[in-house]
C-alpha cells in the first residue's frame, strides 16, 4: 500500500453486469435531481432564505449572466495558468527529488524529517508570508500551488521507488545495467502507479491552493471572483465559479485515474 490510501478509486466491477452499472448511475442521477428539486422548492416556498441559499434556477440565471457580462475566460485563464505553472514546477522538482530520496538512504535520513514536518502542516499557512515575499500577483499563487502539490508527488514517488521489486533491480544490475539504466528502465516504471497516485492527490491540493490563494488577495482569477461575489452576497454567482473550479479539479482527477487504470492493467496483481 502506498503512503496515501487509495480510497478515491472505485471498486472494480465485481459483479460486472451492465444492468447493475446502469442502476447505479440511475440512482445517483435520481438523488441529484431530487436534491435540486428540494432545493428549488424550498427556496421558492421560503422554507429557507433564498438570499443565503440561492436556488438552482438562480444559479442557472447567474451562469448565463456570467457568460454574458463577466469576463469568465479571462479569470479562468489566470487561474489556469497559475495552476499549470505551479504544477509543472511541482512535477519538475518533486519527481527527481522523490527518485533521489527513494534510492538514497543517506539523503532520506537528512531530508525526510524537515520534509515530513512541512508535509503534515497545511501549506496554505504559508500564504501570507508568500505574499509578503512575492507580492499579490501571480507569483505568490504559483508558489502556493507548487508548495501544495509538490509534497504528495515527492512522498509517493519515494514510496513507489522503495516498493519496487528489489529482485528486478538486482537482476538489472547483475546484467550490467548502469545506475541511470536501472533508474529509467526499472525504478520509474515500477514506481509509476505510486507516482500517478501522488499526482492525482496533488491535483486536489493544487486546485485548492490556487483558489484559496486568489481568495486571500489577488487581482484576477476564479478565487478573486468568488471573493468578490461572496462579499457582495451574490450567492448564485459565487456558486457558478465554485462549481466551475470543482469541475476542473474533478475532470483532471478522473483523467489521471484513467491513466492509472491503463498503467495498472499490464501488471499482474501482487
Amino acid at each position, binding site marked *: 500500500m502506498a503512503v*496515501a490510501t487509495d480510497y478515491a478509486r472505485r471498486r472494480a466491477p465485481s459483479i460486472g453486469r451492465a444492468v447493475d452499472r446502469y*442502476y447505479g448511475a440511475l440512482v445517483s442521477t435520481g438523488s441529484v435531481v431530487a436534491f435540486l428539486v428540494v432545493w428549488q422548492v424550498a427556496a421558492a416556498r421560503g422554507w429557507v432564505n433564498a438570499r443565503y441559499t440561492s436556488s438552482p434556477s438562480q444559479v442557472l440565471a447567474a451562469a448565463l449572466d456570467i457568460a454574458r457580462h463577466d469576463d469568465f475566460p479571462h479569470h479562468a485563464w489566470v487561474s489556469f495558468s497559475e495552476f499549470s505553472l505551479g504544477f509543472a514546477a511541482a512535477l519538475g522538482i518533486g519527481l527527481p527529488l522523490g527518485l533521489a530520496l527513494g534510492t538514497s538512504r543517506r539523503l532520506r*535520513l537528512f531530508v525526510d*524529517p524537515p520534509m515530513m514536518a512541512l508535509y*503534515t502542516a497545511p501549506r*496554505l499557512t504559508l*500564504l501570507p508570508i508568500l505574499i*509578503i515575499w512575492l507580492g499579490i500577483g501571480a507569483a505568490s499563487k504559483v508558489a502556493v500551488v507548487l508548495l501544495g502539490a509538490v509534497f504528495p508527488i515527492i512522498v509517493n514517488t519515494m514510496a513507489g521507488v522503495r516498493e519496487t521489486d528489489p529482485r528486478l533491480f538486482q537482476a538489472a544490475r547483475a546484467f550490467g545495467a548502469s545506475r541511470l539504466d536501472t533508474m529509467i528502465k526499472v525504478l520509474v516504471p515500477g514506481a509509476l502507479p505510486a507516482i500517478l497516485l501522488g499526482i492525482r492527490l496533488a491535483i486536489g491540493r493544487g486546485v*485548492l491552493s490556487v*483558489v484559496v490563494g486568489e481568495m486571500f488577495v489577488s487581482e484576477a482569477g476564479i478565487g478573486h471572483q468568488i471573493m468578490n461575489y461572496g462579499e457582495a452576497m451574490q450567492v448564485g454567482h459565487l456558486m457558478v465559479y465554485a462549481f466551475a473550479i470543482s469541475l476542473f479539479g474533478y475532470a483532471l482527477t478522473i483523467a489521471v485515474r484513467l491513466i492509472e487504470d491503463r498503467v495498472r492493467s499490464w501488471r499482474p496483481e501482487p
Partner: protein
Amino acid sequence: MTRVLERHQALISGCISFAVILLTWQLAVALGFVQVFFTSTPIRVAVAFWRELRSGEIAANVGVSLYELLCGLGLACIAGIGLGVLASWSRTIEHILEPFIWFTYACPIIAFYPLFIAWLGLGAPTIIAIAFLSALTPLYANTLSGIRNADRDLVRAARSFGARRRDLFLKIALPGSVPIIVAGLRLAAGRALTGVIAGELFGAAAGLGYSIAFYGQKLKTTEMMVSLVMVVILGVILTQLLSLCETATDSWRTGPGR
C-alpha cells in the same frame, strides 16, 4: 558509542538537518543576503515564541484552533462512519450518497465560506463546518471499503457456523475494518487541519490561522512565524498520534503481509 550512533541515526541526522536549516536562515540574515523584514530570524522567532507563550497568546490561539479541529473531526467521524456503514448495508444507499460525498471531496470547501458565515456567523461554527466537510470523505470512503473488503475466509467460516448478517457485520466486518478507518482518520485529520487553518485565514476572529493572517497584514513577520511554527508542531503531533493509533489497532493481526 558507535552502536548508540547507529541506533539513533535517524534522530541524529534529523536534528542535524534542522540545525543546518536554522543556521542557514540565521546566517543569511546576519550576512545581509536577505532582509530581516522578509524572513525574520530563528533567534527573533524564538524570543517572540517565548514571549507569546508566557503571555498566553499561543495557548489561546492553539486552544481555539484545536477546539474547532476536534469538533469538526468528531462530527465528521460520526457522520462519515455512520454514512459508510449505511452505504455498506445497501448499494442503493451508496449510489444515493455517492455524488454528494465526491462533490465535497472535489470542491474547494473554503470557496463557500461566505455562505457559511451568512448561515452560521463569523467564528467557530463556520470553521467547524469547513473542517467537517473537509474531513468527511476519507472517513466515509475508508469505512465503506473496510467493511466491503472484509476477510472472505472469516466471513465464510462464520457463515458456515450459522452467523446471521448482523453477526457478520458486528463481529467480523466492523472490527476488521478498524485499521482502515483509523487510516482514514489520519487522512481526514490532515484535511481538517487544512480546513481549520485556511478557514481561519478568512472567516474567524481567533485561532492560529487568524493570527497568521492578522500579523501578515501588519507585516509582522516574526509574530507570523511563531504561529506558523505552532501550526507545524500541531500537525506533527496530530499525525504522530494517529500513526500510533494506526499501528496499535493493526498490531493484533497476524499472518502474511502484516
